């Protein structure tokens, strides 16, 4: 263990500031178990589960752009009830916090899901931001009263930390984040994917069956940095940064912008070394801290602000 890597987000103590982002690598409990044995992983966020099972969209659902992925999976998941059962089998013996991502479409669903999932979760991330599913995600997130109702219902149904994941696809993301914090969210995860689209020049058609999708990866990193930076100045709650973290510099950049912890998604699939990307990034962050004379990663959170 590396004591200098420990951070605390909304009451969750993480042995590393690096977390697995929701949805990447899907929902398989065995992958969660394998990932959790990596000492540079501080927490795992599950695939977003919804009230009812969803089969997701038809293929093509993902485009590899090299500098990122464009995806419109359509939130395929087995539904919260079956997922709770599967997570129960993983939870035992898991050394790191398991954050369950949920995508309820209204308050009643939120309440029922969280009550059921509470026994297998160490915390919740409310997905207010999936850019390509109607009635869920952004649709919910940009309707202030609906989003606030859902976060309140989650807050009211659990004593565990609640993160709200926000979208970059709105004009006023600060208002959305503030709204979620006022409704009871302990922390904000920023950002989900950026709306985008790809057309194949040979087929002369949109590639994704859903036409529109969400861009992740390297390409969105500056967008994430900017949003985390602004949120840090405007809201009090801790921020979990997410978007295009491929190496230690990207992670440090988000932390300097104000993130307490950092989520990693696309890089797991884009890196040649798979899950070892966490170790490469972890080592890089430790080297950086040592070089700059810091004993803990906590000391650099938001430092880009004070040095302006």
């Amino acid at each position, binding site marked *: 263990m590396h004591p200098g890597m420990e951070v605390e987000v909304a009451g969750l103590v993480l042995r590393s500031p690096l977390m697995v982002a929701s949805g*990447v*690598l899907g929902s398989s409990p065995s992958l969660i*178990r394998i990932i959790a044995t990596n000492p540079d992983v501080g927490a795992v966020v599950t695939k977003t589960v919804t009230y009812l099972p969803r089969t997701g969209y038809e293929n093509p659902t993902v*485009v590899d752009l090299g500098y990122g992925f464009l995806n419109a999976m359509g939130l*395929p*998941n087995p539904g919260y009830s079956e997922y709770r059962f599967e997570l129960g089998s993983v939870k035992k013996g898991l050394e790191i916090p398991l954050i369950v991502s949920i995508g309820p479409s209204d308050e009643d669903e939120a309440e029922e899901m969280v009550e059921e999932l509470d026994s297998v979760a160490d915390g919740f991330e409310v997905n207010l931001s999936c850019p390509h599913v109607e009635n869920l995600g952004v649709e919910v997130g940009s309707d202030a009263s609906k989003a606030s109702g859902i976060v309140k219902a989650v807050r009211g149904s659990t004593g565990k930390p609640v993160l709200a994941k926000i979208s970059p696809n709105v004009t006023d993301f600060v208002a959305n984040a503030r709204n979620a914090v006022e409704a009871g969210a302990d922390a904000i995860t920023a950002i989900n994917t950026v709306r985008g689209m790809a057309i*194949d020049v040979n*087929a002369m058609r949109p*590639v994704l069956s859903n036409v529109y999708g969400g861009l992740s990866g390297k390409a969105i990193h500056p967008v994430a940095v900017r949003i985390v930076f602004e949120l840090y100045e405007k809201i009090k709650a801790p921020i979990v940064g997410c978007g295009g973290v491929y190496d230690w510099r990207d992670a440090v950049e988000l932390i300097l912008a104000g993130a307490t912890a950092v989520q990693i998604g696309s890089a797991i*699939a884009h890196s040649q070394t798979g899950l070892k990307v966490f170790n490469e990034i972890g080592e890089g962050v430790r080297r950086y801290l040592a070089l700059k004379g810091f004993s803990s990663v906590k000391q650099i959170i938001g430092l880009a602000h004070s040095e302006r």
Partner: protein
Amino acid sequence: MNASHYYLEATVASNISETSRVNTLVLRLSEELKIAPGQFLMVWRPGDGEIPITPSLTMGETLCLTIEKVGFTSSRLASLKPGEKVFLRGPYGNGFNLSLPGRYLLIGGGTGAASLTPSYLSLVRRGVETLFLVGARNRESLVYVRRLRELGAGFQVATDDGSEGFKGTLPEFFMEVSSRNRFENVLTIGPERMMVKIAEKCVEQGVSCQVSLVRIVRCGLGVCGSCVLDPLGLRVCVDGPVFHGEKILGSDFGRFMRDEAGRRVEVVQ
């Protein structure tokens, strides 16, 4: 593949009916595609969907796909007419390891006979001693045997009802053949229950066995997790589709898979 576009364009040159359920598309590619035996492609028709297929022949700018009509997308693709287009991305996955020492026995059930053909040709071309067993329920369901004959391939047939060749299942035929001959390597593609039986026999006999698995492949890139083999956490699209039998026996191999919603369901075939 050319990084400047997402998909490679291919035109159907001919469509050969193998059985009432299976067709082989002969495609002309807009540029050459390098693909190792056992790797797969994602095959897309706008509006009809996109599915993973292991090619049954690759020769320069000619590529064959042998497709069983099991649902919407496969039925649409299998019914394409000459001149129509499909779009390909890949190759994906690991492919078979054909450089292990010794003799090879290839066992293809259903469309697996077609998918194993590039491996067969590659081994024979290198002078490796290879025997190819293909099987189906009955004579009418045999896939790709005409093409194998055209290619001058030496192969033996098993049918469950004995309407052609050995009477019995492929695992039975395998037992029969391996009691008379010794092989150091077995490669198999076919119904999963069949592959499990063969893999178990191989482990008993200390023979190396490589199987090609089918799971729901969405991204093909290792990012979405829909193709995971539990409890090993292996992604079929990047860690596979080819696995060594002994590494996956005892897992969900042959027993459970995940459906499109990620629910754990029984393997039926």
